[in-house]
């Protein structure tokens, strides 16, 4: 294998030197050859290059001699047939190459942007950054709260809304899983880690409460997505209680999911969906497409 | 020749008697064993069975002894040929450890055919006394005696009666199902017998529009229902109701065995 690589590089070098000769020949006598004796200088340059070519040619021959005969015929798959086709256009390679190049370029660009955004750490929800250990100890942790504290916070929120019923279960150790029924409009399962909302699944009235399956209905799948966005938006590591309360307040605004039209276009339906987005501050309903 | 035949006859007779006696002995042995070891789960019928066995064996033995074919054992004499104060191992084995020595003071006890002389004397005295009694006194004593016996008989039979009713009560608990009850239940479930709410009653559970209580012969409907209720109720309270039911059902049921 190494021999093959060596041979290939020597062929490349040979082609380069041959190319150089043609290059010099095509350029003819240049300014840098000086005024007097420029012919000789040019000739000697060509001669030098030719020498290099012969030298490289010898290298190639040597490398080829070193190559052993490949055992059996080489199977190259479909590429075998490439040699049969001589017109470049019909292979359509060029356009594909350009396309893939464009894609890689784009990916590169986007990932650069993403990296820049992520490095600002605005969405990081745990203190995993290599900050000083001293500072970490002083910070309040939102995911290390006693179950009683979680219960009191949630029951306080529960009292706040009388058309939203909540029940807490703890199927996995101390972390609470909250089942919320919003009138007879929808229900949601919210998984907490301490007081940090970790996961939200929104389902229709009468659908099974569970954390892992999506709703049957498109509307609720959409709202699940939006709740994820809201849960990230409202997240604040220093005031976990406020975060939960504001999320719940926002979530409660879905009580008018089917009855209130979009604030912007004034109609109920867009693409056969009701306004599934609620403004994070004003709680006004918008269609996905109208919110911008 | 005759002697020889008689001897042979005697031998076979003795063998047969020995066999019976051995049987008897074994039954007594097993009964004693049972009494000693299984007394806690030995019940009365079982014990009675054992006694019956013993008595039948005794009867057959005595019949055998009184049979014509058998020689009169009474006429034969046993002479102890050898008495010894020594312990005899063979004898011990033969008697299953009961008799160890065949000595002078033991042999008369084993071979005795008459009661002890004192007892014999007493018996003669009593017989003499009896033969000397006058007819009246005998009659008087006999009536007194039969009176006492009758009294005892009465007590015993009364006890027996009590005991039997108790016993039958006990064996009744082994009965686990009653055909009469089956019939009652099936009839109730299938046709509502005993469940039918008579007219004008039991409409509390029904929607009021179902049957108007008006226009129904209230008096005529209610009276039998009350009677029915009373009968049912009283039947339920009497504890012996089940027993009588069983009997009557056995007579009535077409499939009774």
């Amino acid at each position, binding site marked *: 294998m190494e021999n093959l690589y060596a041979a290939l590089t020597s062929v490349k070098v040979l082609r380069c030197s041959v190319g150089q000769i043609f290059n010099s020949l095509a350029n003819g006598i240049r300014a840098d050859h000086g005024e007097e004796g420029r012919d000789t200088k040019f000739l000697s340059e060509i001669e030098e290059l030719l020498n290099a070519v012969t030298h490289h040619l010898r290298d190639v021959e040597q490398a080829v001699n070193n190559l052993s005969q490949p055992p059996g015929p080489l199977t190259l798959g479909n590429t075998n047939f490439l040699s049969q086709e001589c017109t470049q256009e019909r292979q359509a390679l060029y356009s594909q190459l350009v396309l893939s190049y464009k894609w890689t370029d784009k990916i590169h660009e986007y990932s650069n942007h993403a990296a820049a955004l992520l490095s600002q750490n605005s969405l990081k929800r745990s203190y995993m950054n290599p900050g000083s250990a001293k500072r970490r100890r002083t910070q309040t942790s939102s995911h290390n709260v006693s179950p009683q504290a979680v219960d009191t916070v949630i029951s306080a929120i529960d009292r706040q809304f009388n058309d939203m019923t909540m029940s807490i279960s703890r199927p996995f150790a101390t972390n609470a899983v909250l089942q919320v029924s919003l009138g007879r409009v929808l229900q949601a399962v919210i998984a907490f880690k301490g007081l940090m909302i970790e996961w939200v699944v929104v389902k229709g009235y009468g659908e099974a409460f569970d954390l892992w399956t999506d709703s049957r209905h498109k*509307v609720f799948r959409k709202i699940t997505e939006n709740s994820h966005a809201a849960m990230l938006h409202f997240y604040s590591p220093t005031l976990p209680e406020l975060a939960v309360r504001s999320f719940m307040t926002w979530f409660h605004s879905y009580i008018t999911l*089917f009855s209130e039209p979009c604030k912007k276009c004034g*109609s109920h339906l867009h693409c*056969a969906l009701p306004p599934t987005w609620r403004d994070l501050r004003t709680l006004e309903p918008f269609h996905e497409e109208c919110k911008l | 020749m005759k002697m020889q035949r008689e001897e042979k006859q005697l031998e076979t007779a003795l063998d047969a008697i020995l066999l019976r006696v051995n049987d008897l002995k074994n039954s007594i042995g097993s009964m004693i064993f049972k009494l000693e070891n299984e007394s806690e789960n030995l019940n009365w019928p079982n014990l009675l069975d054992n006694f019956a066995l013993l008595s039948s064996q005794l009867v057959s033995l005595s019949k055998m002894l009184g049979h014509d074919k058998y020689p009169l054992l009474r006429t034969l004499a046993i002479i102890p040929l050898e008495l010894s104060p020594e312990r005899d191992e063979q004898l011990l084995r033969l008697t299953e450890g009961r008799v160890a020595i065949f000595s002078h003071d033991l042999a008369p006890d084993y071979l005795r055919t008459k009661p002890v002389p004192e007892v014999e004397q007493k018996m003669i005295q009593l017989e003499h006394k009896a033969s000397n009694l006058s007819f009246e006194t005998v009659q008087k004593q006999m009536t007194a005696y039969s009176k006492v016996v009758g009294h005892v008989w009465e007590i015993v039979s009364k006890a027996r009666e009590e005991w039997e009713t108790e016993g039958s009560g006990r064996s009744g608990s082994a009965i686990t199902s009653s055909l009469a009850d089956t019939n009652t239940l099936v009839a109730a479930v299938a046709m509502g017998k005993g469940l039918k709410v008579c007219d004008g009653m039991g409409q509390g559970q029904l929607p009021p529009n179902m049957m108007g209580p008006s226009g129904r012969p209230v008096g005529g409907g209610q009276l039998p229902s009350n009677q029915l209720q009373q009968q049912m109720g009283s039947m339920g309270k009497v504890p012996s109701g089940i027993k009588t039911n069983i009997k009557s059902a056995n007579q009535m049921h077409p499939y009774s065995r």
Partner: protein
Amino acid sequence: MGVTILHQFPMLENRTGPQTIEFLTKRIVALGAVQMGQFLVDCDSYISMPSLGPQRTVHVLHNSEQPASVFSILETNTKTIPLVADGLFDLLMLKMTPIYTKKVAKIESKGPRFELADFCIKLGSVTISQNFKGVLVEVEYRPCVVPSNCVGLMREFLQGFLGSCVQSLPACLQNKMDEVYQPMDTIQQYLDHFLNFRKMAGYSG
């Protein structure tokens, strides 16, 4: 089961039944709906014998959306009682034939069934013993279970593809606006329309 509204689509003079269905299908497909099978709702009516006193009618309906259930609605002079039962209820009605007899022809609504996001749209052509009588459009909005919540939304959707002929809500939903919608409510709507069709057929025939 979501809130469902059944709407009778008016027939135009120059259109046959299949043409109307075709026309509606085109509209609904243009909105992005996909056909998902067919549907069928049928109704048999059994009428009591005169000996039983005042006449009562038992309507027995089947909906292909709930294939294991039989819906029956008993109609007396004073009230109607709905009953949902297993499929074997049909067998029981056969046992009842001496007392309740089938005197009127079967009426059914049958046609394609479409899905568009969370909506389910059914275009049914109504026939009484194979004679075409009209078109019933059923629209179900499956995520919502309380009628009062989604009245506006439903009306908007219906007007979106049926045009301005859509005005009021079905009568039988009016007094159940705040209750959870049941499959029986759909059946009740079908029955109301079926009885209308029958009445009209009776007048014309």
